[in-house]
């Protein structure tokens, strides 16, 4: 039983760490803000979720397990919202630049998001 529990934790936490690593690589290597955001939110969702699942057997009872799940939910809510807010800013900047290029192409050389 104990070996099974340890194995469960090791596999899930390692998988979570792998998603964090992949997300960080994406954050560093992807070419534009929206792709980087995509990589980051995947790491947040899956990484935190898997680490949380792997730690559940160690939470010391239902109250501790519920707290872990609550933490995961809070990270989900805030992470998803912040990704949306950043994406909105990016979309606004892109719209501004496109409008500038369309209306006054000669002045828009230096502008970029």
């Amino acid at each position: 039983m104990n070996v099974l529990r340890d194995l469960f934790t090791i596999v899930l936490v390692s998988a979570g760490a792998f998603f964090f690593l992949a997300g960080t690589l994406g954050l560093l290597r992807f070419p534009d803000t929206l792709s980087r955001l995509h990589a980051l939110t995947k790491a947040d969702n899956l990484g935190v979720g898997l680490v949380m699942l792997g730690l559940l057997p160690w939470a010391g009872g239902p109250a501790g397990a519920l707290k872990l799940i609550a933490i995961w939910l809070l990270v989900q809510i805030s992470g998803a919202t912040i990704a949306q807010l950043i994406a909105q800013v990016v979309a606004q900047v892109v719209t501004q630049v496109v409008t500038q290029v369309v209306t006054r192409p000669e002045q828009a050389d230096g502008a970029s998001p």
Partner: protein
Amino acid sequence: MSAADLSLALLVIAVATWTIAARGLYPAVIGFIAYGLLLALIWVRLASIDIALTETAVGSGVSGTLLLRAAARHRGKVAIAAPASLTVKIVAALLSAAVSLAVALALLLPPGPAPSLAAAAIADMPRVGLGNPVTAVLVAYRAFDTWLEAVVLLLALVAIWSLARGPSWTGTPVIWGKAAATPPLTLLAQLLAPAGTMIGIYMFWVGADAPGGAFQGGAILAAMWLLPMMARLIRPPPIEDLWLRRSLIAGPAVFLAIGLAGFATADAFLAYPKFYAKPLIILIEAALTLSIAATLTMMVAGPQQESEAP
């Protein structure tokens, strides 16, 4: 010290160096926030969960937000001050290194066994009815320091209010950002504020027996008050609002009143009478949590603008 601890320590030093070297205001502030969060991890590794929570909530969260607001106010304006000359930088670096070296030597090579009051503090804990030694030290043995901290916070808010244009001490803080909230922010405020308020109150309540307390709970409550303000769901109160003013002084005032009553009931300033220590401490902590939440909220909300002004 494990390899993980060593890399954590090196990472903190690297982020600190990067924060100092960063050219822009925004990158420096972001670096400072990351530095605070990493520092909190080190406190966790040192088994000081109370300090880790405070560092995250106040050191990184509230201070970071204040610095971000300050950076936003200076965006696109001239530099705040001329960059320091090379001589000044070298002298500052040498002085900082000397202080770090002195502290490190004192910690690593103490002249004898370090003096500690920990045993005395733990021995008296049952008398104040608390299970968390940190809270016991803060509200019982070093109550005067804690009371002064609450007063300092209040003075900082008065200083911020005095930065406003105009002669009178009335008006409403102006919440930054766009005039209308975006749907994701509204959703976040509606979902997170009720849950977060409960977490803040829990943090204060659990402080009696586990890591937590007035400052951590107050910082979370402040965030949960600011979030609906930023989402334009509620408006910041005018600074002359009577309930706001009462909330601001509740903590220091209750603390002082109970402290003065200690002369009559327990023969000393800030001493608690036997058998009533625990309820009195909970009362003080509750009032402090309210005041800290209100003060931090109004500090981040910033100076007031008079209603007539555009």
